């Protein structure tokens, strides 16, 4: 009797052990991202290559468009069923991992992920309370991207200073007509472009980069808002009001008919998305040029918002964190992966991948110029640090409402400034 029971127990133990071995070798990890078709197609190819090189690890792709991605991820987070690897925006860190406990600390996988591939400043942006919350993918910054056509037609050079921008606006309107503007700011650009000027003038950011509070004084904010009104009134920017009348203030530039018809001379765009601005232009990328960054003489900062585009984070609930780390390393640092992905997953932050793309000319020339401009500004110490809270949806909502009211003449810069500061501080104190 004893023997039979022992035999049964041994058989059971052996079976369990065998299953465990099998599980240790065979891991299925889930990878979630948002993006367009090109990104999806290229990522699926990289997944296939990774699986061939790592038999025993299966990667399940969970991809969608941007709309609804954060909502789905948040719901999964709430239920503890988030994917093993997630593409997330840096701005979401305060929400998902306020104290650095939301994701696995990437530092613990330093033997699997080549962290020395990434600039320290970039890793610092992704570190919360000493815990590395993800692997950064490319820096992105705002720059002035132009459609050559209207500038050539009007015979005006790209502006280098704000005064030259106002002069260009005047000339373009006179020579080509009222529907012609030097710049389309897009939704967030409307406040970012004028903030760039205010930061160049005062060398202070709207929100303190080190602590969640407004850093600008009331007079500085009022001046920022006055400059925005001047940009709109002097025809230098397509106004929020005009954009709304055209079918939506938040529509991307490339979908606006006046951009397609070459009536808008440029856009204040992130370098990481500049190629998408050419999607609807008949001349494609050849029609676009990166202009000089518009500056005030003697400015100590360019005031452009530059930060990590997005990051790959690993779930702290992952049952196969090492397999996940291996995959993240492959995706973010491997040269073969870079050749497949190109720039469809933004400009890589990894040195090896960047070298592959530039040396083998796998990157469009204009992209190289744009990213090069941001890098150059950064090297000169002209790129300021932005608070992670600046891009919080509630702060963005507040800024957009304020600028919309200004555009519709429902308020004045002097009235709006104290309100903006008070409300921003109220939101920041709650975050």
């Amino acid at each position, binding site marked *: 009797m004893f023997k039979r029971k022992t035999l049964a127990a041994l058989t059971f133990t052996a079976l369990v052990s065998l299953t465990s071995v099998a599980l240790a070798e065979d891991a299925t990890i889930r990878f979630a991202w948002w993006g367009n078709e090109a990104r999806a197609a290229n990522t699926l190819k990289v997944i296939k290559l990774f699986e061939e090189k790592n038999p025993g690890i299966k990667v399940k792709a969970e991809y969608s468009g941007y709309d*609804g991605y954060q*909502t789905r991820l*948040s*719901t999964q*987070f*709430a239920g503890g069923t988030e994917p093993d690897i997630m593409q997330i925006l840096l701005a979401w860190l305060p*929400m*998902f991992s306020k104290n650095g406990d*939301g994701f696995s600390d990437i530092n613990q996988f330093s033997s699997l992920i080549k962290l020395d591939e990434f600039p320290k400043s970039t890793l610092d942006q992704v570190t919360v309370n000493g815990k590395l919350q993800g692997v950064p993918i490319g820096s992105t910054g705002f720059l002035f991207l132009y459609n050559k056509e209207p500038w050539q037609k009007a015979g005006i050079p790209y502006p280098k200073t704000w005064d030259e921008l106002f002069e260009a606006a005047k000339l373009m309107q006179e020579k080509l007509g009222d529907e012609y503007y030097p710049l389309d700011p897009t939704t967030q650009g409307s406040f970012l472009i004028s903030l760039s000027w205010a930061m160049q003038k005062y060398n202070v950011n709207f929100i303190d980069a080190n602590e969640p509070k407004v850093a600008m004084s009331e007079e500085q904010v009022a001046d920022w808002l006055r400059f925005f009104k001047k940009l709109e009134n002097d025809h230098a920017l397509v106004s929020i*009001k*005009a954009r*709304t*009348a*055209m*079918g*939506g*203030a*938040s529509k991307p530039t490339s979908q606006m*008919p006046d951009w397609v018809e070459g009536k808008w001379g440029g856009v204040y765009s992130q370098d990481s998305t500049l190629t998408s601005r050419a999607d609807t232009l008949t001349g494609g990328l050849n029609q676009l040029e990166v202009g000089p960054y518009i500056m005030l003489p003697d400015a100590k900062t360019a005031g452009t918002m530059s930060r990590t585009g997005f990051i790959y984070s690993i779930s702290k609930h992952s049952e196969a964190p090492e397999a996940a780390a291996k995959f993240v390393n492959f995706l973010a640092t491997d040269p073969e992966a870079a050749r497949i992905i190109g720039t469809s997953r933004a400009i890589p932050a990894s040195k090896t991948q960047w070298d592959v793309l530039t040396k083998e000319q796998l990157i469009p020339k204009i992209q190289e110029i744009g990213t090069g401009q941001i890098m150059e500004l950064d090297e000169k110490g002209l790129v300021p640090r932005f608070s992670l809270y600046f891009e919080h*949806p*509630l702060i963005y*909502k507040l800024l957009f409402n304020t600028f*919309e*009211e200004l555009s*519709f003449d*429902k308020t004045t810069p002097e009235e709006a400034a104290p309100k903006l500061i008070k409300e921003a501080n109220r939101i920041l104190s709650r975050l």
Partner: protein
Amino acid sequence: MYESKRLGYLFVLPFILGILAFNLFPFAASFALSFTDYPLIGAPTYIGLENYEKMVFDDDLFWKSLTVTVSFAVIVVPARLAVALFIAQVLNFKLRGINFFRAAYYLPTILGGSIAISVLWKFLFQQKGLVNIILDTVGIDPIPWLASERYAVWTIVALNTWQFGAAMVIFLAALQGVPKSLYEAAEIDGASFWQQFRNVTLPLITPVIFFNMVMQIVNCFQEFNAPYMITEGGPLYSTYFMAIYIYDEAFKYFNMGYASALSWVLFFLIVSIAGVLFWSSKYWVFYSGEKERAR
């Protein structure tokens, strides 16, 4: 007998489970969550009536969205009912090819709630859209339909009024149910068309008017697709309906507790209005056969 009952319950079990899991549970959970601060990630924190207090005393946007929603319902419900009844009346005539017209007038309702129609509407009313092109041909300056606090809501009103088909079909059925003998009697008594409509048709279709009114009010208070797609709630919140506010709070800013509280306020508002309508119905809704039953 007992066996067949059990079998019956078994057949309806999937439906009951579905209702419990996907309707009743979220319904009850949202009520409980409305007394919490729940940012989705992390556990909800009980805060008592704070969400409701904030809404009433410290949230201008709540009052703005409430005003927009109520004003919209006040305009759209009568407009849609009037148009639906008028078209139903016309389609009730025995005309050649009437079935084609009935189908044609119902078509917008099938299409109307869709995202595609909202996108089309946006194109029609934008600065260089078809509406302004037509106005231009008759010498009227372009109107900034989507960029004007005054006009933006009217584009949504127009779309909603255009979707009168469902109410129209019900009105049409009701009109066909009015006994011909009553019209004949009225005609013999010398009643004009308007008098017949006022004294015969209207009283006899009041149950259907009542039904349509309740349904349209419920729909209007939950309007989401059109303002979300066409005007994005703007400009300056002039088309910021309660449903959009709830959506933004829940899925943009992840204030699930506050969004739940807003949902319950909207729910009580709809229930209260429906309650008042039901109470008032005994004064103006005529159910045929009621008097006979009373006797």
